[in-house]
């Protein structure tokens, strides 16, 4: 379980990107974080990854205050979380297979288990036949699927995705969503920041909406709020 308790983040002592956030996210949930550009979505995610620390408040992960984790144990904490970026961030000189295997190599795993697990995960994201391709030989959607494969290969408890469909067309976005919901069904918590209204309304999941850094809506299994939006 993830808990934000009165969390605020002020950049450069003057700009508050995230204001007094209180949130509880249970294990196995699927959550959209929405809000306009600059609303603070990425800041929230960075806080959760312990890339930045809150100016006020605490963030607990399974009851552990993540900002009390010692610097050298941060790596261990991050292994509980798989992260998917908007820009994929695959290593260009490695094949699809190697990109995924790399994530496994970095934190554990015998060569044998790597040879066993990587093909499984690649088939889950539908890329078995592209294992030997290099990232620049793949479409955006395919690259993002590799990135997802990389994020799940170490069986994290939580997947955090910051606009994973941000660079993709609607069709491809659907594929990505399919994979993410599939992963969620297997028990992994998924937290996804997005701009994409259509996706949010299509998948009836919990939606947390930010505005100027504050949570203005937290709707269980909702989609966007019903009121006409966009000002």
């Amino acid at each position, binding site marked *: 379980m993830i808990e934000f308790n009165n969390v605020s983040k002020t950049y450069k002592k003057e700009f508050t990107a995230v204001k007094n956030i209180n949130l509880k996210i249970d294990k196995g949930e699927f959550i959209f974080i929405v809000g306009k550009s600059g609303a603070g979505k990425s800041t929230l995610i960075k806080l959760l990854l312990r*890339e930045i620390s809150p100016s006020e408040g605490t963030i607990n992960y399974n009851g552990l205050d993540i900002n009390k984790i010692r610097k050298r144990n941060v790596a*261990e904490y991050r*292994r509980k979380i798989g992260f998917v970026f908007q820009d994929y*961030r695959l290593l260009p000189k490695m094949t699809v297979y190697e990109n995924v295997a790399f994530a496994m190599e*970095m*934190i554990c795993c015998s060569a044998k288990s790597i040879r066993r697990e990587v093909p499984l995960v690649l088939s889950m994201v539908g890329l078995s036949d592209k294992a030997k391709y290099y990232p620049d030989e793949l479409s955006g959607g395919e690259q993002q699927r590799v990135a997802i494969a990389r994020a799940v290969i170490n069986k994290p408890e939580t997947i955090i995705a910051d606009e994973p469909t941000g660079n993709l067309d609607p069709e491809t976005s659907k594929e990505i969503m399919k994979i993410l919901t599939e992963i969620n069904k297997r028990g992994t918590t998924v937290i996804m920041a997005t701009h994409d209204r259509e996706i949010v309304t299509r998948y009836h999941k919990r939606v947390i909406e930010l505005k100027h850094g504050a949570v203005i809506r937290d709707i269980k299994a909702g989609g966007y709020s019903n009121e006409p939006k966009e000002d």
Partner: protein
Amino acid sequence: MNPKKIEYVFKQALKSMWRNRMMGLASVGSVTAVLIILGFVLIVVLNVNNVALVTKETFDEIAVYLDDDVSEDQIKEMGDSFKEIDGVLGVAFQTKDYALDKLKEDWGEDAFLLEGLRVNPLPNTYIVQLKDVGMSEQVISKLETFEGVEDVQYYKDAVNSLIKIAEFVKKLGAGLIIMLLLISIFIISNTIKITVLNRHKEIELMQYIGATNGYVRGPFMIEGILLGLIGSLVAILIISLGYNYIINYLAGRYVALLSGISGYMVGVEMILNDLIIIFLTIGIGIGILGSLVSLKKFLSV
């Protein structure tokens, strides 16, 4: 440490060393420069200490060379008055013939060179034994006032000036070494910095994945260590070959004085072990420090 990790860490380190070889060369060069200067200082100090040690027994002895035209009576008289000088323990007389025989003995095989001498060039000598080394100066100044005294030789003076030179070399060397140490740490940390920046995408990713520290930092540490290691190996090679060359050069001279010096010098084989240990430690130490400086600055996600 599994083999895979070691392989990864070394592969990355070697890869970036090759990619970044000009900076690598500068790093190695700076480490080598520090160590060569250090080696030079060490060798000078060691040799001076050695000379001091070898000549130590003679520290409490002053050689008083007498003019050739001093008569035997006068010699006796002089000996008696030398004994009266405050600070003198005793005196012993050495005739010039005895001195020549002793020299022949010292020269051993080369003694035939002395056979050709028509007159004995060595002086009659009084060896004056001091009560206390600290009184040398006052005794010497008294001895010099005697008529018939050609020269007063005291080993300690020569050794002292050697020691003074060594002190100077030590101080100058220490300053240079500290400066060069800092410079080479700086150069290595810059080299590593370039690698960090080159690989920053990969490193950032590794940190998000939760890669262990060994994977993230390992390659940089190894890169620094290898740079330091290469620098120290080059320095060891240069210093030992160079020093050996100098010793041989001096020993090969027919000038007696110079070959005499080489006899006092510490042999390469005597210092090589220590040199290797010291150089490797310092070289690798510089490498590690350089890496750490850079990692502290540039790895913080």
